[in-house]
């Protein structure tokens, strides 16, 4: 792994870093941190209570503690965000590096596939795939991963093409090293920065996508909690129970913001020349 930077060099970047770390800590320690079981029904009469000293963030229509649900929900959101991004990073890197280093026909073929995937709006593809079978956490992660690799593949390909022209890669090829070795030793390590930046910028997007799916009822199913599902449940009582939608929404916003700030900070660190923007696709 990379050395954890002590500071990313600017306040927003550090704030993003702090937010992302906080979130991971929250998700990992959720079972101990959360006040009680997110699925435990409250005592009769405790339904739809506004925030109070007993329930900091209030309760939902079934009397379940909102804070407990919010904290547990972070686990799902983060899990989906990270796993799907790791999947798309793996796929995107594999496609990008093979296209960049491989023979011309492979490059052409892979880029046609990439463009074909890019041609469909992501959310429609996701909706289609998810609605074809029974919604589940695994399915959501897989589908989000499968539809999120194209931008990264193009980015990695471009970077690989420029690395390929660098003298040290040429020299490595001149030594008769196998293409695999050249890719693994002389190209991949130099892509870490690019990939890290792109990945952190995408985590927020994936979390958001999961929420949209859950909001549409196509994401995780009860009793698993996610922020999107919570917003969906609170939708019916938007006026009588504002806290049911406001707090998960706020958590979502902060998370996405945190990852975007982190990504921008990392980019400033890895691409100090600036000028180039990685796409957020």
């Amino acid at each position, binding site marked *: 792994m990379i050395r954890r930077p002590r500071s990313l060099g600017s306040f927003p970047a550090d704030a993003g870093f702090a937010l992302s770390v906080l979130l991971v800590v929250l998700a990992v320690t959720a079972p101990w941190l959360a006040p009680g079981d997110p699925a435990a029904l409250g005592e009769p009469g405790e339904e739809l209570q506004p925030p109070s000293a007993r329930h900091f963030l209030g309760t939902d229509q079934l009397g379940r503690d909102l804070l407990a649900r919010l904290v547990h929900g972070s686990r799902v959101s983060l899990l989906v965000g990270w796993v799907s991004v790791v999947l798309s990073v793996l796929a995107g890197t594999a496609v990008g590096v093979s296209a960049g280093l491989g023979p011309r026909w492979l490059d052409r073929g892979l880029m046609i596939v990439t463009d074909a995937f890019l041609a469909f709006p992501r959310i429609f593809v996701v909706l289609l795939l998810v609605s074809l079978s029974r919604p589940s956490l695994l399915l959501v992660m897989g589908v989000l991963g499968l539809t999120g690799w194209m931008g990264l593949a193009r980015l990695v390909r471009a970077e690989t093409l420029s690395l390929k*022209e*660098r*003298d040290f890669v*040429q020299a490595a090829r*001149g*030594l*008769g*090293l196998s293409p695999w070795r050249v890719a693994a030793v002389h190209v991949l390590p130099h892509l870490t920065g690019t990939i890290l930046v792109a990945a952190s910028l995408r985590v927020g997007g994936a979390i958001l996508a999961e929420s949209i799916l859950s909001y549409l009822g196509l994401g995780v199913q009860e009793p698993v909690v996610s922020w999107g599902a919570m917003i969906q449940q609170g939708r019916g009582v938007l006026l009588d129970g504002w806290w049911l939608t406001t707090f998960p929404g706020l958590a979502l916003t902060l998370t996405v913001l945190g990852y975007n700030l982190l990504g921008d900070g990392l980019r400033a660190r890895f691409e100090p020349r600036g000028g180039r923007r990685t796409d957020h696709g």
Partner: protein
Amino acid sequence: MAELVRLEDLHVALGRPGEVACPVLEGVNLTVDEGEAVALVGPSGCGKTTTARALCGLLPPGAVTGRVMWRGSPVGAAGGPLWREIRGPGLALVPQDPAAGLSPVLRVGDQIAETLRRHHRCGGQEARRRAVDLLAETRVPDPEGCARAWPHQISGGMRQRALLAAALACDPQLLVADEPTASLDPTVQVAILRLVADLRRERGMALLFISHDPDLVRLMTDRSVTMAAGRLAGPAVTGEPDSKPWPPSPATGATALEAHAVTVAHRGTGEPAVRQVDLALATGEIVGLAGESGCGKTTLARTLAGHLAPTEGEVTVAGRDLHALAGSSFRRARRRVQLLFQHAGASLDPRQPVAVALVEAGALPGGVDDLLAEVGLPGEVVPLLPHQLSGGQAQRVALARCLAAAPDVLLADEPTSALDPQAAERVHRLLARLAADRGLALLVISHDLPGLISSSRRVIVMLQGVVVEIFPTSGEGAPVHPYTRNLLAAAPSRLVATAGLWRGEAAAVSRSTDTVTGGCPHAPVCVLANERCRRELPVLRRVGPGWWLRCPELEVQAQSQFIDT
């Protein structure tokens, strides 16, 4: 005149975090006044570049102790707010290596415009227009095209001009030029130096000129400061003694590499960069390849080493057509032809320590020290990363890596262009010794024709992708082709000596890089040219033992050299 910048007791120590830093500068004091031209001279590795970088605030703050004073007030540690104001409008650096000075991912014009925007001189459109003006001012032939080009599309000379344009963008009061022409061929070198001298006069700029060439220093500056081993000192150190005879007596062996009618098209334009080249290298033989930058020398070398495929013709390695092979047999064959890159440092993976790179190339883990000793490096460099090596060390590591592959053929692309004369001589000796000891076929590519004549057995002269003359250096007879003679006359010190050339038209210099469609490439400037030379490319004909010439007008004269004896 008022003092512009002063270095006070400057110490610099560089090293990796967590390791003992290695002192590079030990107490340097230096003053440059307004409008003054000062030279900083000394052998390579003595700290000239480090001084320049410290002066420009480009070293990590922790590495520097001592003070940098700008107009009498201290500017503080590098990276501080004052630096941002001074760099650009105050002082600007023209780096030594034009390849490293430009970002490969930005168009040339945009990089210059960026400097302008950063200092809020002007906005986007305006900055881009200014960039073109600046390129025109640095006498780039096609400023609009150059601004639109990517750095890899323009020649070394143009890159150096572009860097100069970027440095001049904010009207600096002090220009720090770090061997700005070291890796360029003599004619381009003179053109750029003239340009710097002219601009300096026009703008009243001060100049800190770093060089190892005393002739250039005398020409460019008012006074000079000599450095040696990190201090301002007396005379420069001289070369190490080497008992082996040099050049070694050639022991001609079997043919190791052959090229037949090789033509290579430029990847961008499709124009041939190398046209119909034939050559053969025998084991134990040293052959020179001479020509100005942009003549196709590097393209030819890369083709011979298997990096580029020829559009026509074939390259034969150990009896097999290299580019007809594929997969692992291609990789095995290309291993026998190793290329020592012109920018040796850039050819080393920045993340690979020396030892790892050598083992990867085929050295036995136990043999790394021996290999390093063979190229004259101490065992201490084994754990270092490329950026911790000096330019000369990086070159030797790259050389050791070539040797680790146990090649039959070594192609050295401008191995001495960035070195001072003593270091260059040492590298020549080293290469000659390796060729003799290991029975390598050695092709040395250079723009220094006199150097090649003294170090190789045969010299091939190229002009715009065409071989115009091949001549042996041992026998009787002198080079005949008008272009070869021009090259001989254009050795830097002589160029400088002939004040006529110095004052001559700058336009004459860019002339030889214009592309020629058909006909003799020398025809546009040749005094002997006739209609036929202009129309069709003359044939390369044998005029004597081992002697080939591509000029019908002088064939008889060349042959007569041998009839007499």
